[in-house]
């Protein structure tokens, strides 16, 4: 029983982290601690960090939603819904462009 109770991250600290369980460390350093936007653009990093977190740590998407994490709903690279949105936005833009072009009388040159 004693063996199970020894903190394996015993001091001296130099050897501590190297023996720790990666999940223990990740759930702390990725997810917790003071979050301050440094000079390196953190808004992009947030997404990356959460990507990893979700993949590695969070048991399910439902659980993530409970925790208020729903960024993938709007991240174009991750959600098919968002991708559809992006596609329809592109379509709208193309239509607007052709309307503009025809308003400017460009349709004849395209035909020709």
């Amino acid at each position, binding site marked *: 029983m004693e063996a199970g109770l020894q903190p394996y991250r015993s001091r001296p600290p130099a050897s501590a982290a190297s023996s720790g369980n990666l999940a223990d460390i990740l759930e702390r350093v*990725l997810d917790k601690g003071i979050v301050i936007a440094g000079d390196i653009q953190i808004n992009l990093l947030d997404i990356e*960090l959460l990507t990893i977190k979700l993949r590695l740590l969070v048991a399910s998407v439902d659980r993530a939603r409970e925790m208020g994490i729903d960024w993938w709903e709007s991240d174009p690279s991750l959600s098919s819904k968002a991708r559809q949105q992006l596609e329809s936005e592109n379509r709208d833009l193309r239509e607007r462009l052709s309307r503009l072009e025809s308003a400017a009388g460009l349709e004849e040159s395209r035909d020709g």
Partner: protein
Amino acid sequence: MAEVDDLIREARAEARAAVQARLRARFERQLMEEAEARLAPAPQPGRAPDAITGLWVYCVAGGELPDVPPDVAGVAAGHQPRVIRAAGLAAVVSEVPLDEYGEEGLRRNLNDLDWLEEVVRAHENVLDSALPGGPLVPMRVCTIYHGAEQVERMLAERRASFEDAMERLAGRAEWGVKLTVDRDRVAEAARARTEHVAGATAGAGGSYLGRRQQDMRLRDEVDEVVTAAAAESHARLEEWAAESELLPAQRRELSGHDGEMVMNAAYLVDDDRLDGFRRVVADLEQQYAGHGFAFELTGPWPAFHFTGSAR
């Protein structure tokens, strides 16, 4: 009249051509910008990216924090962690090359688990080395500034909230307790109990339906035992902690635990209550170890779960 019509037609055609040319130039410019942005998001003109470094911040502590021992390595090879002191506070930092730790580099590297593991272990290791020096506020990984001046400004601007956090953490440390269970062993024990009680009527389990009902009863009983064990453990540990937080169960691929993780919690424990806290873990282990449960105590950790990450 026909002449006027021609004039109008010509003028209209010329106007069309002129507008077309302008629109075209505009679209060209726009598309070119988009294409350039997509193709070359990286280096700023006149600067060799590998020559630039930023400052990775590990934690903030009181101004009396001792220097980092020289045998403690930083996240980036060859860059020793050091202490920046300002506004009565101390920040532990080390240089990181921005080609690897800039926005673009991090996007690439963070999804590489080997790279990530090395970096987070180094981050944690530096914090561990600073932990005996008094209360410290750990930073989430990838808090990077351009230089010492920016770090000093950050310390000055956030001085009050750092001091609040350190006051809350003084004389305390974060400890982790995980409970894992081997359900088969819990089921075995439950079955043995049932058979013992049922005794003479054991023959009732002979039919298929009877066996199924027994299986379902057994599963429910195992669930109950497991839930009760987790609830009791957390409740008893919580009594000895200043604050606590229940965490999601860990993924076996990363943690390598045996059995099923049914509790994963972090506790902020006063140093002078640590003995009591440890005793509870030992008691729980004694009570449950023979029944398929295993406890794991880890720590002391930097108080990652108790520094108010939303601030």
